[in-house]
Every structure is written in C-alpha cells, then in structure tokens.
C-alpha cells in the first residue's frame, strides 16, 4: 500500500471510518438523534473525496492502484456517487423508523455504512478475489440489517438472506475458480486477453460454465430470474428502510460488477452473453409482473416489481452491441446506469412514502392505504408519482429510463426485446395503478391526518424531485453515464 493507494481508497476509508465513529458515538451519547445526524453529515467526507477523484480522473483518465486490484475511473465513481446519494436519503428517511429501536441505533447506521463501503468497492474492483470480498462486505451487513427487528419475520428474512447469499457466493466462487483455471489470472484484463486468444466460440467449456456461474452469483444480487426467490420474503420481513436500501443500492452495485466483469473480462464472447441476458431479462420482467398482480401486501408487491425492473435493466446488458450515434459510447450500459439512477430515486420515493403512510396503520397491506389521498395528500401524491414512474409514464424518470433502454435494444437489432419490455410495462400498470386507486378512490373510516417528520419529508422531497428532474431534464445525467461507460468499451 502506497500513499497513492490510500488516496484512491479515500472514499471507502472515509465511509468505514464514519461507520466506526457512529458506533463509538452511540456508546457515549444519549441523544440518539445526534447519531443519525453525524452519520448523515459525515457522508460529506466520502462525497468530497469522490468528487476530488472525479476531477482528477476527468483530467488524467483512469487511475489503477492497490496492486492492480482496483481502478478509479468514471464508471466506479458514478456508482460511488449513486450509492452515497442513496445512503444519504436512506439515513434521512430512516430517522422516524429507527427511533423505534431504543438501542442499537448506532449499529443500524453503521451496518448501512459498512455495506455501502462494500458497494463502492465493488464498482471499482478489477480482480476476482477483490470482487468476492467486496461482495461479502456488502452482503453480511445487509443480512444483519434484514434481521434487525428481531421478530419472527425479520429474523427469518435475515436468515434466508444469509443462507441464500452464501449459496450464491458459493456459485460465484466456483465460477471464478473455473475462469481462473482457464485464464491463469484473476485480473479482469488478463482474463480478457486469454479469452481473446482462445479462438473457440466460448474459449472452452470452462469459460462458459464459469461465466454462467458468475452470472448466477451476481444475478442473486440484482434479483434476476431464476435467482430471485429470496426477494419477496426478505423484502417483506426486513425493516422497510432496509428494504428500500436493498432494492436500490444493492441492485446498483450488483449491476456495476456485472457490467464490469461481462464487458471487460468476458467481452470477446459478448454476443453469446447477449442472448443469455435477453432471455433472463424477458423471464425476469414477465415473472415479476405476473406474480406482482396477485399481491395484497405492498412490500411484496414492490419486491416483485423489483424483479421486473431487474428484467428491464437487463435489456441494457443484452443490447451490448448498441452504440451512441458518434460511436464513442455504449447505449446499452449507459442506459443501465441511467436507469439505475432513475430507479433509485423512484424506488426510494415509493418506499419512504409507504413508510410514512404505514407508520400509523402498522400494516403493510394495500387495503390499509385506503383514503390516504385525503389523510396525507402530499405523501400520497409522491407515492402516486413514484408508481407512475415505475410504470414508465412521462414526465418521470422511469419513462426516460425505459425510453433509453428500449432504444438501445432497437439499436442492437433486438426489436422483439423492446416490444416485450413495452408490453410488460403496460401490464405492470395494472397493479401499480391499483395502489393509486386505493389511495384516492377507496374510502376509510378514519379521517385522521397522517403526519410525517421533517427528515422524512426532506427524503421524500429529494427523491420525488429527483424523479421529476430526471423525467424533464435527462440530459445532464446522460452525459455523465455516457462518459462513465466509455471504460467498458474496447479501445477502438
């Protein structure tokens, strides 16, 4: 480790340090509100480091380091910033929820921050072992968080997440071993060279099996069919802020590493991966949407919605061949990044609105939301707006995201995939709008107003405005994503 390496790792070090600080602070102070405040404000440190690094990368290009195990480039920094933004909103929005636990508040924030450290690393790694370790660093705190309520359902959720996460890690490791055996290196760059020299369509069955196994391991993270079984149970049982966090940050990190591995290391066989992702994309969205239709619990509904959205985002991976008009950047991966940003804003808005609405009723059933349009007009409006964005209707971020992804599919000569995506979006309107109908049309005996705290309102405002902003002015974020994914393309 040289000083330069520390510099490159500064955001992660700051995040982990912040987590430690929060735990210590929790020990010595009785004012628990302070803990959350420090956790939130402390995010400024990793944010500043990331921005400084962005400035440097902007001038000098990618900065490899730490024995070649990771690289700081725009792609990694994009995900760092997304994760940091998500963590900030999650901490802000959890304020009410967390105050329910008399103890362990510091631990709650610390676990979120540790997991975030893993996610930021995951986007930057270029070496298989580091990928594995980062993934574990991401997952283990999440399992603890899922079990945080310590009641029956929450414990079950945590245990399921831990077990299945272990299974998927095993698959991932197995895949890595096979790839290493073929390529003789764990560096993604070396693997790419070895695959390129292979000659055969898949190099060797080892690369095929290794790739598929790794896809399965990552597929678990992003809730891709058929590795999505854990999602509904864990989402339902886990504390809702954790569910929100899981549904956006964990998914974003999973896609980051998936893009990196499959575009950089296994790029030479890209066309074949394209077919795999196309098929899994269609299955994910179809299964997610079909099962979501029958749900009566709003958290389970959003769990299946997450699976469906994993399907939409996979369209971008399938559209590996699509390029921007000037050919300098990939439409598919750029669409993936954009959609992840849009989806993060949308899902956070939806989840935190649900937290605010259900905190009074104490039930996650959709019917419990009846009449909320009158009892909490602003929060209900944000929820309705977020659901509209999930369907993909303008002027929302969700619409723009789908537009770019499906556009990428068309450019990659996969019109059928775009059509399936659009049909799925239409079908999904059925269950999202059902929630909106309950909010506004169904009536409820209670007329009591539902109040929300300032922090939650702020979290809702940030994410809601994000959805609107990206829906109206997608340009700035697109410029960033197009710049970020340039590192994924072969230097042509």
């Amino acid at each position, binding site marked *: 480790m040289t000083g330069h390496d520390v510099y490159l790792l500064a955001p992660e070090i700051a995040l982990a340090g912040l987590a430690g600080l929060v735990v210590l602070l929790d020990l010595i102070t009785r004012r628990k509100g302070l803990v959350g405040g420090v956790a939130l404000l402390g995010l400024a440190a990793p944010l500043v480091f990331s921005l400084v690094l962005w400035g440097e990368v902007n001038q000098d290009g990618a900065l490899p380091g730490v024995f070649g195990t990771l690289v700081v480039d725009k792609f990694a920094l994009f995900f760092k910033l997304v994760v940091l933004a998500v963590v900030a909103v999650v901490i802000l929005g959890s304020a009410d929820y967390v105050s329910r636990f008399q103890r362990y508040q510091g631990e709650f924030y610390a676990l979120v921050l540790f997991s975030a450290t893993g996610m930021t690393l995951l986007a930057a790694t270029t070496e298989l072992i580091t990928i594995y370790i980062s993934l574990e660093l991401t997952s283990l705190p999440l399992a603890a968080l899922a079990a945080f309520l310590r009641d029956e359902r929450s414990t079950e959720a945590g245990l399921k997440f831990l077990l*299945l996460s272990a299974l998927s890690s095993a698959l991932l490791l197995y895949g890595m071993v096979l790839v290493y055996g073929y390529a003789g290196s764990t560096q993604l760059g070396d693997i790419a060279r070895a695959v390129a020299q292979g000659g055969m369509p898949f190099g060797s069955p080892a690369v095929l099996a290794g790739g598929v196994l790794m896809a399965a391991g990552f597929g678990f993270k992003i809730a891709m069919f058929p*590795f999505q079984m854990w999602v509904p149970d864990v989402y339902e049982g886990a504390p809702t802020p954790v569910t929100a966090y899981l549904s956006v940050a964990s998914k974003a990190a999973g896609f980051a590493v998936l893009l990196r591995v499959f575009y950089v290391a296994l790029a030479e066989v890209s066309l074949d991966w394209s077919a795999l992702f196309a098929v899994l994309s269609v299955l994910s969205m179809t299964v997610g949407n079909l099962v979501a239709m*029958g749900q009566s619990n709003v958290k389970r509904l959003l769990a299946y919605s997450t699976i469906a959205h994993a399907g939409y985002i996979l369209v971008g991976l399938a559209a590996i061949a699509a390029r921007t008009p000037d050919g300098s950047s990939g439409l598919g991966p750029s669409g993936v990044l954009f959609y992840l940003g849009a989806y993060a804003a949308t899902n956070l808005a939806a989840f935190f609105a649900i937290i605010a609405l259900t905190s009074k009723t104490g039930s996650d059933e959709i019917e419990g939301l009846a009449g909320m349009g009158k009892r909490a007009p602003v929060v209900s409006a944000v929820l309705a707006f977020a659901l509209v964005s999930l369907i993909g209707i303008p002027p929302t971020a969700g619409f723009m995201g789908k537009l770019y992804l499906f556009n990428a599919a068309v450019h990659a000569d996969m019109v059928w995939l775009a059509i399936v995506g659009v049909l799925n979006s239409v079908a999904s309107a059925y269950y999202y709008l059902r929630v909106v109908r309950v909010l506004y049309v169904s009536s409820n005996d209670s007329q009591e107003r539902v109040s929300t705290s300032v922090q939650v309102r702020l979290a809702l405002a940030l994410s809601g405005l994000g959805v609107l902003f990206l829906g109206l002015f997608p340009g700035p974020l697109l410029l960033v994503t197009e710049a970020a994914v340039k590192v994924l393309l072969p230097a042509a």
Partner: protein
Amino acid sequence: MISELQAWAILLLPLASFSLIALVIRPFLGSRSRLSGYVTILSIGVAFLFSLIALRSTLGHEDAIGWDFHPWLSINGVEVRIGILMDPLTAVMLVVVTGVSLLVQIYSQGYMRDDEGYTRYFAYMSLFTASMVGIVIARSIVQIYVFWELVGLSSYLLIGFWYHRPAAAAAAKKAFLVTRIGDVGFLLAILYLFLQRDTPAFQGRNPLEIPDILQAAGGAMTAFAATATALGIFAGAMGKSGQFPLHTWLPDAMEGPTPVSSLIHAATMVAAGVFLVARFFPLFEVSATAMTTVALVGGFTAIFAATMGLVMYDIKRVLAYSTISQLGYMMLAIGVGAPAVAIFHLFTHAFFKCLLFLGAGSVSHATGTFDLRFMGGLRKDMPWTYVTFLIAALSLAGVFPLAGFWSKDEVLLSAWRGEVTVHTLVFWMAFIAVFLTAFYVFRAVFMAFHGDFRGGAQAEHPREADSNGAGGVHPVHLAESPMVMLGTMLALAVLALGAGYVANPLGDLAGIPAHWLTSFLGQHEDLTFNLGIAGASTAVALAGIGLAALMYGARRPSPEAVGRVFGPVRTLLLNRYYLDALYEDVLVRRVFYRGVARLLDWFDREIIDRFVDGFGWLSRNTGKAIAPLQSGQVQVYGIVISLGLLAVLGAYLIFGR
C-alpha cells in the same frame, strides 16, 4: 437594447403570476382575494413595458436578434432546442398581446368584482396571456406547438369558467374539440418537417427551428414539401382563428365572461392563427396552392361570417361573427402576399374589437342581458359607454379617419393590386363584406342605444322575475359602469380613433416615417393610397350605416317587413347556414355516434375485451401457478436456484454451439 433575460421575463412574468395565484394566493388567501388581480396586473404591466423595450430594440433591425438556442432534449442526434426569435413581427405582437391583456385585466377588476371565482379567473388569465406570449416569442416550431396547445387549454378553462352552466361547459368543449381538428393538421406539419431532416433541403439545418425552416423554404425545399407543410400549418391556424369551416366554436365561446371574449377576440387566441401564418409566410409564399387557399378561405370567411352577423340578436354573437369576418380579412391579406398588412389590421382590430366587447360587457352589466331585443335607449343612461361603443363601431365599419379605415383600406388595396383572378375575386368578397359589416354593427348600435328601453333581463325572463321578484335574474339598474371599466374603455377608444393613422401614416408625421409599421414588418413595396378604393369603401360603409339607421332607427322600412321579404334567407342565416346542425346532428350524432362509435364499441367489447379478459385470466392463473413455489422454504429456493443454473448451462450446451 433588450437583453435576453428581459425577453424571457415577458413570458415568465405572467407565468409566475399564474403559479403564484394558483399555488399561494388561492390556497392560502381564499378564492376571492383581491391580491390575485393586482399580481396579474402588475406582472402583465411589467411584461408590457418589456414588450415596448423589445419593440424599441427591433426598430431598425432587419433581422431577428440572434440569441442562442438552449438545448432541451437530444435523443440520438435529433435536437430539440428552445429560444427566442425576436424580430419586428414578434415585437409588434408582444405589444398588442400584453397591452390589450393589461387593459382587459384592469377592466376585469370591475367586471369580476363579485364573482366567486375571482382568483381562479386571474390565474387562468395569466396563463392565457403567458401562453400567447409563448407562441409569439418561440423560435422552434415545437415550442410554438407547446404554447399553442396551452392557449387551447386556457381558452377551454376560461370559456367554461362558469362551468356550472351547461351551455358554458358545452361551449368550452366545442372550442377545444373544433380547434383540435385544426391542430391535427399543425401537428402533422411538424411531424412532416421532422421526417424531412435528412433531405437536402435541411442539410446542416434543424427541421424544427423556424429560421432554418424559412431558409429551407427559400431554397432547396421541394414544392410538394412546402405546400404540404404550409397547408398543415394553415389548418392549425384555421382552427384557432375561426376560419370557415372551423369557425363554429367562436360564437359559442361567448359563454365565458365578457372580458375573456374580448381578450380571445382581440389579442390572444384568434390572433394566434394569423400570427402563425404570418410567421411562416416565406413557406407559404413559395407555394401558389397554399397562397390561393389562404386567400380564398380568408375572403370567403370574411363575407360568409358577415352575413350571419346581420341577423343575430345576441350582441356578443354579432361581435363574434364580426371577428370571424375580420380574421377573414387578415387571412386574405396574407393570401394576397401582404402579411404586414394583415398584422396591421390585427393591430387596429385588437383595439376596436376589444372595445366593442368591453362595451357589450358594460351594457350587460347594466341591463343583465346580451339580447339586443331587450335593450334600447341606453345612450341616455350610459353616455360614455355609448360614445366609446360608437367610436369602435365606426372604426370597425371602416369610416375615415378612424383606425379601422386605414388597415381595412390597405387590405383592400393589396387585394386590388394583384393581377390574378383569385385576387380580384377575394377583393370583391371583401368589398361586399365592408357593406355588411357597417350594417350589422350599426344595427347593434341602434338596437342597443337608440329608441326606448325594452326591459333588460326582467323582460327577457318574465316568468322568473314574476315568481321570485327579481331574485333569479340579474337586476336591471341603468347606470354607467364603474370607473375602472370606463377608464379602460376610454383608453381603448383613443386607440380605436387614432392608432391606425398614427401607427402607419401616409406621409411623414412628426417623426414617424410614412408606412413605417408595414415596412417595419417587412412590406417593402409601397401601397400607394388609392383614392378611388378609399372613397368607394367609405361610401359603401356609409351606405351600410345609413341602411341600418333607416331600418333600426327610423324603422322605415321596419326590420320585420324586410325580414318577411327575405324570409327563407333570414331563416338560413339565423340557423347559421345549418352548419352547426350539420356538424352536430349529422357528423357527430349520426356518423360518429351511431356509425363509428358503435362499430368501435362492438370491436372493443367483442374482440379487445375478450382478448384482454383472456390475457388477464392467463396472467392470474400463471401467477397462481407460480405462487406455490414461493413456499417460504429456503431449501426450495436453493433448489430452484440450482435448477435454474443447470437450465441455463444446459441451454448453452444444447443451443450454444
């Protein structure tokens, strides 16, 4: 020199006023807060000042002020950008729009004083003004379209302002739908332009930006492309400007509050169509077909609408047909190649037509009715209203030396100049319409202000007045309207008197060069004053006034006798050539409801619904079939993951090679 920020402010101020009223004043200060009126007047007043600066800055500039475009959307190389096109046409329109709007807002302070929806009214008015400004300053055709539709929306809101009255709701719907027919043409023109982006004409040009379109029209655009685009744009203009056959919404739009009518007729909505055609004039110019169409539609509308104005009893309907007819004049002027003259006529028309409507509003403020049959003798009780109305009427009739005379004269002159048969034809149409115009407007003057008072609202609804005193009916109190209304009318009367000559004099006039307005707007060949035409048209106008005086003043011959002689013609006119009946009964009820709608209904029920039901059934049951797998057993999940993985691997091994 106007800065770009100031130019944007002209649009943003009324928009800000709208937002402020809608989001702050109405929710927090209640629906009758006076503040909303002041905010509106202040913002439009400042916008008017900036418009004057804009006019001052464009003087002496041949070309548009070249501000940059601002990128809005860019998808795969197709750029949609927004910007301001500040040229003389824009500047003149801005002054007319914000100026007339300002006066109308001030007048509304009095007119709407006791209305329940006071704040709502001013919010809509601000939006209406902002939308119109948005059209005028737009530099991209997409930008125009956005505000074009906003004008449609706000006119819908304002015409249906008293939405609890079925007639108002129906009129609002009618205005929205009929103009929408034209808008389809406009939209098609935009899409057609978009498709032209790879043609040589748009090499290096953006097909959505007005300067580029006009350049392309002057050069490489094919005749067909120019004609198609021009006709599409004209379709949109026909809808908004109430040109035959899409004029039917305008008389019904009277159901809105009277100041709204005056704004719609003078400065905002109907002017949008004329402006649009003038804006794209270079495109029309290269297509003889388009020019002929515009001239013929305009000329026909001028005479056609005037005939219907002859027999209407509702004073606002008389004025509405008059507007349609005058818009016909403007279109005609564009069609014979004189867009500057058209805008000149739009300019003068804005003042006297606005004044006529405000006068009608003042009259109904006193009598409670709009029906001419129940007015009469009002000049004694409302002398100021009478004088201002008379000035506006003379101006509309085109009597020397009022504002309307000068612009109407130039319209006639531009048509006369042309050597094409079409031009001669439309000249005679417009010339006959001069007579009709003078007759119908003075018919209204004599019926409303001369003779004896015929009872107002209480005579119109005797039964309601009997049963509950005057309770259900607007009380009749024959007195002048409040100062805030009269003051506005006086200001407009001055403009209706002098604006024509002062703005566009024959010879140099105290610092104002001859014909500066039209040459400023791009009319370079001089329209030399033709004494013959001016004299003839004035004589014809005076004849019309004289006939109206004979029939409705002296009652020799009495209107009833004349009506009997022209019985069938009168019935035809009273029924508006049965066009409304044709549209509503035949097209809407018979063809659409019974034919198209029934067919679609059958298709929807029997084919679509069956299919959707089937799809829903399939989805539900697929969901049900998958659901048991979600047993909650973590072992099952592990097995599914493993089996899924094997399936993927197997698929690769079988199909992958």
